[in-house]
């Protein structure tokens, strides 16, 4: 099925099997292998990408559903010769070890900060109608969809905190 997705700012047209997930379309068809397959069941978050600015698990979504969508993968966040500040923060804080969950963590962090800016509440949010304060509990709750088996969790908090600043 002919599907056109704007990936990292570039319209990419693919003839796709309807069974192909967004994750496999990115990895196997477009060779954008920065999005990782850790579980293929939406349980680990390694495949997190931004679709129209919102973070999703790319393994839980069929690619043909995204005709016309704008997808940002880790490759679109920043390159080695032009790292995004969040990528620099992960590097500086050593917020990863094996690196397999890292692209998903970074995409998730960027999506999460936008959700906070838009005042989306989480389970940790005390006031559901007011502005969201990104406390450490909020941050940890909102990043809990991204497993890091190497367990760089404290460093991931530090990296995101260095970008997001302290809670108001």
């Amino acid at each position, binding site marked *: 099925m002919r599907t056109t997705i704007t990936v990292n700012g570039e319209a990419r047209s693919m003839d796709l*099997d309807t*069974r*192909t997930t967004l994750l*496999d379309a990115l*990895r*196997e068809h477009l*060779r*954008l*292998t*920065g*999005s*990782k*397959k*850790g*579980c*293929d*069941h939406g*349980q*680990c978050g*390694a495949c997190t990408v931004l679709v129209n600015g919102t973070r999703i698990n790319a393994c839980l979504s069929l690619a043909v559903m995204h005709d016309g969508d704008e997808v940002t*993968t*880790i*490759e679109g*966040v*920043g*390159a*080695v010769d032009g*790292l995004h500040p969040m*990528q*620099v923060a*992960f*590097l*500086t804080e*050593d917020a*990863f*070890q*094996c*690196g*397999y969950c*890292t*692209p998903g963590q*970074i995409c998730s962090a960027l999506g999460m900060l936008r959700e906070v800016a838009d005042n989306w509440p989480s389970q940790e949010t005390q006031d559901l109608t007011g502005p969201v304060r990104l406390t450490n*509990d909020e*941050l*940890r*709750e909102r990043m*809990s*969809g*991204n*497993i*890091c*088996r*190497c*367990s*760089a*969790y*404290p*460093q*991931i*908090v530090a990296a995101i905190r260095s970008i997001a600043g302290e809670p108001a």
Partner: protein
Amino acid sequence: MTSVLEWEATSNPVKENRAGIIGKAVDRYEGPLKVTGTAPYAYEVTPPSPAAYGVMVSATIARGRIAAIDAAAAEASPGVLLVWSHENVPEQGPRPPLYDFFTPFPRPALQSDRVYFFGQQVAVVVADTLENAQAGADLVKVTYEADSQAVDFHAHRHEATEPDSPPEFQLGNREMGDFAAGFAAAPVRIDDVWRTPLQNHCQMEPCAATAWWEGDHLTVHCSVQTVRRNQIALAATLQIPPENVRVLTRYVGGGFGGKSAFYEDTVLASLAARALGRPVKVAFSRQQMMHGTIHRPATEQRVRLGATPDGRLTALSLMTTTHCDRRGFFTEFSSLFVRNLYAAPNRLTGHSVVKLDLPVAGALRAPGEASGTLSLEVAMDELAEKLGIDPVELRIRNEPEADPETGKPFSIRQLVRCMREGAQLFGWDKRNPKPGQVRDGRWMVGLGMAAAIRGNILFPASASFTVDADGVITVRQGMTDIGTGAYTVLAQIAAETLGVPLGDVRVEIGDSELPPAPGSGGQFGAASAGSAALAAGMNLRKAIAELASNDPASPLFGGPAGQVTFQDGVVAIANRSERLADLVRRAAPDGLTAMGEVSPAADSGDWSSHTYGAHYVEVGVDTVTGEVRTRRMLGVFAAGRIINRKTARSQLTGGMIWGVSSALTEGNLVDPRYGSLINQDLAGYMVPVQADIGEVEAIMLDEVDDKANPMGIKGVGELGISGAGAAVANAIYNACGARVRDYPITPDKILAALG
């Protein structure tokens, strides 16, 4: 052979650390590739032509035989290129009848109609696309004849016998003094049984391989922790010479012991690529990882402590019962570390194993210590309470002056300092020894501590160093970096040894064409690979010095080669100097290469050499639900000279967090009907997530263990988990008075213990 004393007496650039690169908190060498998603893992490398996709089919019985395979529907399915089972898979080297994890041997796939465990791979479907391969795999019909099975460890543990592992593993019973008499005579005694569950690695990257052939030469990228051994084993499996097999493993998405050897993905990708004449890639699914690789087996541990009223241990015993697969002889050696930890005149340790029709048991991060400290270090807490002695003080009173069983001197042992400094930094003196006294709203709050110990090993390793005409140093080694920081510490050793900036070092690892090194595991990686790198660096220094001394165009010409210094990319003898790049460009434009290697010293066995630490944990226990939250953790560790404070700290805190989940959440439940693991994915197997973890800090004491290896370094990859779970368990007791000896300590067990 060298002597440990020679290492101790000999200075070298790593010890001198003139540029200060050793010990520095340097960012990860390969970090920019990882944060941009451009480090290609095994399934992601670009083969010379488009790859076909293999999907494996796994057995659904625990023991029996395959009565029939109906592959017709799969073979007729769109895009399917081949379907293999034991009926038609190409011939492979036979698996030895009893295998071990330390010798490379053939690991054939789909070998017979026998099923040895649930989840064993029984077929593979290769197709033009991943979707077609998956659909084809779903169409393979396998009919089984099941045999009677034994899969319930606790129902069969009374059948356990002495391990049939090689005698040098020393897993059998060892007694010193008269344990029974000593224990019977002890005025204060602890005698309890702990259970730890089967655990899985859950590396984020499932095992995967991409393989292709050029003539009779195979190239295979796979996700493994060791290079050379897997090259040999894969060649033996494929029945071709090792030099015809190139194994690459440049980026590994977590190992933790579970990727020491390759699995069927690598074999089947290699065989199918040969049969189809095109590249093939095969990956495990997350569910297949749980059953089809290895796991830490469950244990039952009986600890008996006998002590005098003033807290001197007079009798000490940890006896471990565990299980392994019917064809294996791996033993979770939970009792071994006890032989090195505390002084006591009467001692008994040993293991027994029952063979079950379960998936293959094997090494998982700190095999032995990770599970064994969960009993002994809690028993010490119980003893401290019974004696009315502070848990730190009790351990200090039983600190041995030499190795408690061999009598060998310690190379260095700073366990007491770890405990004392940790206690001070953590505020241990504020702990109320009486449980259930501290409340914070709905939370009962408690503090716990435990000691940590993990061994130190050096394996033979080699490396090559090349300097090119730009003065760039390239380290080449068949080493792996599984997230440990190997790339980075090798770069630091190279930069410090050759006196060049870190930016002038390249590191190439994870390739069987490079000088062999032992790979990653057992926290021996940095010491073994790094020592070989230092040796190669020293040899390259010598070669460069001689080049300068013999080159009439060099300002250093005629000077004594032994006095050449290396600093800031400049070689010098006193005030005569030139840039390293200028020298090489002029005198050796094709570059200079030197090899180096390290082997264990002849007398390394004359010392007891370990890494040590102390864990301090604060937990909250929910008064209503029994939920446990770790609020803060502190670990203080002594592990020799630290090459990179940043990556070492991450390994330690990562291990500590593994300790939290080993105490609270991790464990595979075995379904007694099928021999399967009930929780077989990341929704059911509870690894920690961000919300589970509070503040975690790891502190590394200044230490040099000059008897460990030429650099005086040791490993930290497994030290952090050792003892961490016990500290959590002890904190739970202090918080609420629940002593749960059946891990994981889930809320239902806490509520039951509280009545």
